[in-house]
């Protein structure tokens, strides 16, 4: 029946009309698909990728920035390793990382990359034990647990440091990151500094050869796994522990004090002279009240913004965003339990942002 109907329509000379209708349909589909992609229809959008460490803060900052200015900043938390790699590949406008790029990584990048600190965070040890006890860890204890040398919570080495706590005789389940992470870098950097065995066996890096443990993706993944797994212990950014009401351990710092992680202790860890390019590790800090596993987190951008057909407008928006994040947006840091940038860091950040150029001319006046 379909066949005969069609034949009748054609016989009535509707062939041309039919052809035109189908061409029209196809064209309108293609146009409607491409319309939003045309240059004049695009507003400026910025794309960033990287660390999960500051993701709750960035998520809030970018949402507020969108309400404020209408500029959409799409940040995907794929891990610091991912952030650096995508920036080096020039597939994103900026990268986020809690591990500053090494000189080796600099050499592999196509052009000079700048580090702009955005906030301070603390890598904390969180765990899943009945009653959420408050535990204290020494550096040796941390290394031993993550090396797999201490297998159960009831081990006497843990009890020695925590005499008042009654720990159950359940196995320790170490949780670490399965992706390339700045948080891992900060943590392993600390353990490498305080434990020579860890330094030679495992070392520091965004992804290392873990002797034991389960892997989870991103800070959220690790936090989620710790929360669900009795006997688990893992390292996550402070905010994730607080947001999920998970217990946090205090750690003995260089000056032999057991310090609770928090905005204040994180900030005091940063009370040391900073280099001009702001690339510095804050772990195992000398500051007496400082939390020993603190870190800056940075946004990484190219110094020369005129690459790969980027527009001056985009570069300018990026610089505006960076300025806003290091100044006005700092107020969100405290609310979300991140350490805001100390004055010296803001000064250094300003110098760095001011050095961003487009085709040689400075952008920020």
């Amino acid at each position: 029946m379909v066949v005969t109907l069609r034949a009748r329509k054609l016989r009535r000379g509707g062939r041309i009309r039919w052809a035109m209708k189908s061409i029209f349909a196809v064209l309108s589909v293609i146009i409607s698909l491409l319309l939003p992609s045309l240059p004049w229809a695009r507003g400026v959008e910025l794309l960033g990728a990287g660390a999960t460490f500051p993701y709750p803060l960035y998520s809030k900052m970018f949402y507020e920035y969108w309400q404020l200015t209408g500029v959409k900043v799409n940040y995907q938390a794929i891990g610091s390793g991912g952030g650096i790699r995508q920036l080096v590949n020039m597939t994103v406008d900026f990268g986020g990382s809690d591990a500053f790029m090494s000189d080796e990584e600099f050499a592999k990048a196509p052009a000079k990359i700048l580090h702009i600190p955005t906030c301070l965070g603390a890598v904390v040890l969180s765990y899943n034990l009945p009653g959420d006890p408050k535990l204290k860890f020494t550096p040796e204890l941390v290394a031993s647990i993550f090396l797999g040398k201490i297998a159960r919570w009831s081990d006497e080495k843990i009890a020695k440091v925590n005499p008042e706590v009654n720990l159950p005789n359940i196995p320790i389940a170490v949780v670490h990151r399965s992706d390339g992470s700045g948080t891992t870098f900060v943590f392993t950097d600390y353990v490498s500094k305080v434990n020579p065995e860890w330094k030679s066996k495992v070392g520091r890096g965004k992804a290392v050869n873990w002797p034991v443990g389960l892997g989870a993706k991103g800070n959220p993944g690790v936090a989620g796994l710790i929360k669900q797994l009795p006997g688990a212990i893992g390292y996550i950014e402070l905010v994730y522990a607080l947001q999920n009401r998970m217990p946090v351990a205090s750690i003995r710092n260089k000056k032999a004090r057991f310090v609770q992680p928090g905005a204040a202790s994180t900030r005091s860890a940063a009370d040391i002279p900073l280099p001009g390019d702001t690339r510095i590790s804050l772990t195992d800090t000398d500051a007496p009240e400082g939390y020993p596993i603190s870190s800056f987190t940075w946004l990484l951008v190219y110094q020369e913004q005129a690459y790969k057909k980027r527009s001056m407008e985009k570069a300018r928006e990026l610089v505006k965003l960076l300025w806003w994040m290091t100044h006005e947006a700092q107020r969100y840091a405290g609310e979300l339990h991140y350490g805001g940038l100390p004055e010296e860091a803001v000064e250094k950040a300003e110098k760095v942002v001011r050095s961003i150029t487009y085709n040689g001319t400075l952008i920020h006046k």
Partner: protein
Amino acid sequence: MDRERIKMRVVKDRGFEVMVILLSLFSMVPLVLILFYILRNGFSAISWEFLTELPRPVGEEGGGIANAIVGSFLLVFVASLPAIPIGITAGVYLSENQKGKLPYLLRLAVEVLQGTPSIVIGIIAYLWLVIAMGGFSAVSGGIALGIMMLPVIVRTTEETLRLIPDTLKEASLALGVPYYRTIVKVVIPAGLSGITTGILISVARIAGETAPLLFTAFGNPFMNVNIIKPVNALPLLIYNYATSPYPEWHRIAWGASCILVGLVLLLNLVARIIVGRWKVQF
């Protein structure tokens, strides 16, 4: 006859039947459980707000999945544009050319493509499109999904057209209709139900794919209809939220799962109905 032996055999026969029935019924249990959990946890999350709003910042309550829904539709659209024409024409080629080197190679290629893991297709789309375009986009994700649609469309088109009796084609040719018109105006419309079914099934298959999108479409907290920018999608959202520690996000993930499964089931159902109703009888 040995009475004992016969009884043993009857017992074995009954026992076997019981075991087969039990195992068969038991294999339905996971499906029932999955649907049950999705409905129980997800149905309550669905609301008008859920379907029309954008996600809120990390840790905050409320928000919706509008951008993921739109993104998924966008990806399917971009995937279909190349996949449907190429798939149908290749299917026609196969149904018209049974023997020969190219048909053999093509059949082989379609088999291999169908069995290729989706993550490998994601790698390819990253290497070909993301690097070439200098960024992540709905286009790269869509093309990856389109590659995955091809085998199903080619197969079902070929099978459908082969089922159409040659007499139809020969009658048209005998009337003097040129060959290509015969195929386009007579044979294909006769097989339209099967071809449409193939398209719907392939869409159902790719609507739920996550792996190829991980490094192509990339994700986006905002609404995006621009195909050369990154886009969010339902499976991506479910993956990210499910592996997070926030109960609020888990709730949203269940709701999104509800919608995704509902969509897939609907597509399969429609495909089934089309096969039943539209089929041209010979």
